[in-house]
């Protein structure tokens, strides 16, 4: 092989792999990205059924109902708008009424959000940042409950993926 051919092989290989990588990243970003909305944003953007989403807010007090089996339904609220959510499966340890929650799934035709996984906070002082931001946007945020926020806020979302 001449010098030129060697150089061409090297550059060609590099560009090939690079192009492949860029192509795959772009392709995957188009279809495999999930948006996060609060209830108000969902109402504003008029999300249609079937689109995969994450929604976050508080579990509205008095709306949690246990259906047969391991199915539950509850409303996610940010104070202004509510979204009804249905879920089947085990719940994370700290899933409670009045607490922050993030649900992933899609709206069905009846406007009910069918969640296939539920994330809840794992420490009484911790709230998923998306939820805190969504609540701050609506002005219903209180930097309250126990220790000052930001000083000792730590925790991990525990996930209850459905089976």
């Amino acid at each position: 092989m001449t010098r030129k051919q060697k150089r061409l092989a090297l550059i060609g290989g590099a560009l090939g792999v690079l192009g492949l990588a860029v192509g795959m990243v772009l392709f995957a970003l188009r279809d495999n990205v999930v948006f996060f909305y609060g209830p108000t944003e969902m109402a504003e953007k008029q999300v249609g059924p079937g689109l995969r989403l994450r929604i976050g807010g508080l579990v509205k007090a008095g709306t949690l109902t246990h259906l047969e089996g391991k199915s539950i339904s509850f409303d996610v609220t940010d104070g202004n708008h509510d979204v009804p959510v249905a879920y089947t499966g085990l719940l994370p340890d700290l899933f409670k009424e009045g607490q922050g929650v993030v649900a992933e799934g899609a709206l069905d035709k009846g406007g009910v959000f069918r969640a296939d996984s539920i994330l809840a906070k794992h420490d009484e002082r911790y709230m998923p940042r998306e939820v805190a931001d969504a609540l701050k946007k609506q002005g219903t945020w209180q930097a309250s409950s126990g220790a000052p926020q930001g000083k000792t806020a730590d925790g991990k979302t525990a996930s209850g993926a459905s089976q």
Partner: protein
Amino acid sequence: MIVEVGHYALVLALAIALMQTILPFWGARARDARLMAVARPTALTQFAFVALSYAALTYAHVASDFSLANVVENSNSNMPLVYRISGVWGNHEGSMMLWVLILTLSGAAMAVFSRSIPPRLLADALSMQGLLGAAFLLFILLTSNPFARLSPAPLEGADLNPILQDPGLAIHPPLLYLGYVGFSIVFSLAAAALIGGRIDAAFARFIRPWTLAAWCFLTLGIAMGSYWAYYTLGWGGFWFWDPVENASLLPWLAGTALLHSAAVMEKRDALKIWTIFLAILTFSLSLLGTFLVRSGVLTSVHAFASDPQRGLFILAILVLFIGGSLFLFMLRAPTLSKGGLFAPVSREGALVLNNLLLTASCAAVFVGTLYPLALEAWNGDKISVGAPFFNLTFGPLFAPLLLIMPIGQMLAWKRADLLGAVQRLFFAAACGFIAMAVFFAVQGAPSLAYIGAGVAVYLIIGSFVEVYGRIFPSGLFKSKNAFVRGKGLPLSAWGSAFAHAGLGVTLLGLAATGWGAEKVVAMKAGEAYDVGPYRLEVMGTTSDIGPNYKEAVAHMTIRRGGEVVALLEPSKRFFSTRRMSTSQAGIVTLNFGQIYVSIADQNDNGTIDARLYWKPLVSLIWLGALVMAFGGGLSLSDRRLRVGVARRAAKLPSNAQIAS
């Protein structure tokens, strides 16, 4: 008093770090051997002061000194001793202390073990290490002081986050940091080489042992973190493509690429500029990981606190070091002597392909991790990029590596015979196909599982074909002196064989997850549930009291064909100080597979919701990482790389320097 000594020692360490930054650097410019010689003692003293300071903080935690805010927020007098010691790094301030402790340890190690490195290069490198130390010490002292007092002192502390009260906390962070921060040595050497403007093959020999050591620790640290998440989060997942995990995977991928390109540089004096770039990139990604985890940009169990000031400070450090080193690279790289070109079909050609694929997969993970952050900063849209993205991008970019890895090992340097290499792998490939067929017949779908398992078997066997060929050059029975040959084989050959095979072992574990069984049930005492080939019977529940928690334990027996093979005790712990509960999964390892049970709180009707899993061969995922690190350790103990031996080679560079 001890606490004040610790605080003071930290300030002194900063002063010494500044000395270490300025004097040797000046000495290297002025060619003053006495000034350059300051580097070594200051590196050691800086480490000693940070260690003293760290010891003082540990003392405060062990003695439950609740006049320290850090102790109050993260400790409790009822906590077992091991968590009081490891809890020191279970919070923001303490973990930064551990970071700096290991950073200065790296500097000290470089000062002690690098006698073969030319004095000017060493002086510049230690100066760079001093600058890193100074930046992070300043960060601790200005924004995250662990020695802040609280007045009046409360009587009791707020306890450590219960999720962190686990033996994993004692192991995972130190290993991970040794990996992360260990790459700082390589970074400093690369920056020093750029400043000095001379790079030759010897440089690869200087960085190789440090790269290897950091890589081994990083491998172990990631594996340990993954296993910890697996047994503590209670739903059997071991890798979530969480940004925090990706932050550790990025330097691992870049570091693996660096390890291989340094080999080319050492043997063939090629890929020099690229190796320098990878050395900078690897530690830059470590710094980026620190920024992501410590700045509060992300929320996770790792992000202890989100104080915007801290985030900005770390961002400034990030910009200074990454930007500075890349700028230096931009200035100097064109002036460096270029390495030779080489044939595509050769060992170095294969290593270039390895580097391309590793850095491309690294880039894919990078984009997936940072795109959501960038998008949110750009237009406020919040998105999450999850497993599907990474499976689609990282998967196809990494998969070819698994196939070509054994082939690359078979190729000779300079010019190789591809056909011959593939022929010699016939046995390994045949074993892979047979394994695939057997797995298909016994376990069946999904296809990804049996194909993956077949590739894993090929990879494990193929990794040793090269070693086999060198011990038995003319076949298993005809070769003479096989034992002598085996003994004479360099340890690094065994090392790379084991490291590659370890990846195969991990792959086998990953592939086997496809055959797992999973059940969610409302458990009742006396009932039995079939999971995979096993039958789990619930005997009953009891409650226990631990040092700082209450615990509900379910007792279960595991039977196979009527015989009891193991007992299982998953539990649920409630920590009263933080009013928070954790699940302790019950795990039993059987034939490398695991029965995994995690339970929730008791329902009103007396049943307990539980997840039951049978995960065949799952332990291989982490055992594979152990094998990889073992291979790295073998390579590290190779004569060629050992410090004492390298000293002989030191004559060459120093002669060259006189000539220059």
